[in-house]
């Protein structure tokens, strides 16, 4: 999180807000106008780079959308002089009035194209950030701790595939929508988690992806108001954000949910997220994101760790398991079960998934905790050591080291 007292980061945030609002719209309009995803996206990216060069000194223009559109058109005219390849398309753009910003919101098509299942997951992430949120390639590279040339190449390849493999620029049909939406939600949740976990590491020059992911989920919720899973994911993200400030102590150490200062949680945000969950539930189509949001809501609404409604949480994890039969979900259910049925019952559940999760640090950390609860401290120690070997996250490592010292 950047602090509000730093004028540089205040400007950065204002710019980010404008780019998020305007670039996706502009790319979407231009793709439709030019019929060429690659070219339209490239022109807008160039306009964004120009804005980054000029706006911090000249100030953000009164009508940033018009500024970006005019700049993208000027870039198009430059291109006509340089390259013959796109001449016909660009002449069209240079000669006619710019696509009006009042036309219907086309960003849904843009999102589905960027998150097309024929693109690799990393490409979906990078492309969505660039085309829909208006991030620049260097910003994306920093966010994913990748080099700039590697990220640029990933984006070029993905855009080339969209054009050459004929990935259509459209919203999927009714029958395909559920499956394709799952793909989009997975991309958004991954972006959010990437940002959420990264906030433990060296944050100085990394863009806070949680804000972009939450904004994207909100946009998707406005564009697809009848889809309860979108609202579920949005509520889930907002519940995490409402508690984000208490996840670390003043020294950057990780504070577990049970030890967090609940008086500092954002109560209004938690209540609003609860209303979103109810709104989604009223549509009568439950799904994994709604269930995860409901679990997060129960944690957020509990007055203390001890007073948490564990029975309901275990029941929700059982439901989640029906939607997503994965060993990680089963491990999480076991952790909740500990408070309902005791450490021995929880450990039996953990052992059942242990072979599949042997390389997952939280399996070992959980096993260690349960063993200590059962008074088997000697057996717990090698488990904490195994967990320490398996995670690179500095805050998690520090917590495990502390446990090994105790």
């Amino acid at each position, binding site marked *: 999180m950047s602090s509000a007292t730093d004028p540089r980061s205040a400007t950065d945030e204002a710019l980010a807000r404008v780019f998020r609002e305007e670039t996706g719209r502009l790319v979407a309009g231009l793709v439709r106008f030019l019929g060429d995803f690659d070219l339209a996206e490239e022109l807008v990216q160039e306009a964004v780079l120009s804005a980054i060069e000029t706006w911090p000194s000249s100030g953000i223009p009164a009508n940033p959308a018009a500024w970006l559109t005019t700049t993208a058109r000027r870039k198009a005219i430059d291109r006509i002089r340089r390259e013959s390849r796109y001449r016909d398309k660009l002449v069209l753009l240079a000669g006619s009035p710019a696509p009006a910003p009042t036309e219907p919101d086309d960003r849904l098509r843009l999102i589905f194209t960027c998150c097309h299942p*024929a693109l690799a997951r990393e490409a979906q992430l990078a492309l969505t950030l660039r085309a829909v949120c208006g991030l620049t390639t260097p910003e994306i590279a920093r966010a994913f701790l990748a080099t700039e040339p590697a990220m640029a190449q990933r984006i070029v390849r993905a855009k080339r595939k969209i054009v*050459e*493999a*004929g*990935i*259509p620029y459209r919203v*999927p049909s009714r029958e*395909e929508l559920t499956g394709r939406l799952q793909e989009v939600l997975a991309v958004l949740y991954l972006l959010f988690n990437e940002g959420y976990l990264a906030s433990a590491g060296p944050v100085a020059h990394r863009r806070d992806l949680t804000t972009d992911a939450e904004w994207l989920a909100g946009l998707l919720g406005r564009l697809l108001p009848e889809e309860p899973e979108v609202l579920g994911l949005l509520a889930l993200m907002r519940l995490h954000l409402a508690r984000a400030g208490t996840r670390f102590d003043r020294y950057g150490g990780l504070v577990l949910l049970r030890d967090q200062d609940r008086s500092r949680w954002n109560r209004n945000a938690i209540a609003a997220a609860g209303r979103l969950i109810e709104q989604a539930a009223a549509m009568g189509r439950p799904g994994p994101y709604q269930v995860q949001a409901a679990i997060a809501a129960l944690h957020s609404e509990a007055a203390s760790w001890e007073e948490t409604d564990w029975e309901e949480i275990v029941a929700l994890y059982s439901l989640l398991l029906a939607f997503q039969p994965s060993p990680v979900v089963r491990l999480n259910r076991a952790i909740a079960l500990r408070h309902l049925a005791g450490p021995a019952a929880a450990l039996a559940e953990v052992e059942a998934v242990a072979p599949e999760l042997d390389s997952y640090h939280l399996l070992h950390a959980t096993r260690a905790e349960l063993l200590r609860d059962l008074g088997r401290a000697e057996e717990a120690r090698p488990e904490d050591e195994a967990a320490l070997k398996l995670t690179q996250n500095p805050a998690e490592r520090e917590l495990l080291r502390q446990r090994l010292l105790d």
Partner: protein
Amino acid sequence: MKYILLFCGNEERWDTMAEAERNGMYARIGEWWGSHSASGKIFGGEELQPVTTATTVRHNGDSTVVTDGPFIEAKETVGGFALIDVANLDEAIELAKTWPAKGLVEIRPLVVDSSM
């Protein structure tokens, strides 16, 4: 846009199939092929002889090496192909999803020479 659908599968599974089952499969493939040819989506394609009949010619600088077998040894092998002409990748994917023989279907766009 024009694409090739490469139908891949496990030949062993095909060989060990009961005859009635195999005949049923061929019938479903025939029906699928017929309807999509009639609609103009399929404009060419063939079934291939088993991979045991494959021969590979490898160019090594100025010389060539001829070997028995496919260029890559894998459980899944190409058993046939269809050339299709559809609006976009989504339509190609929808078509590949209905391929009756299951297995894998690789979709590749064809290079269309605009000067021709």
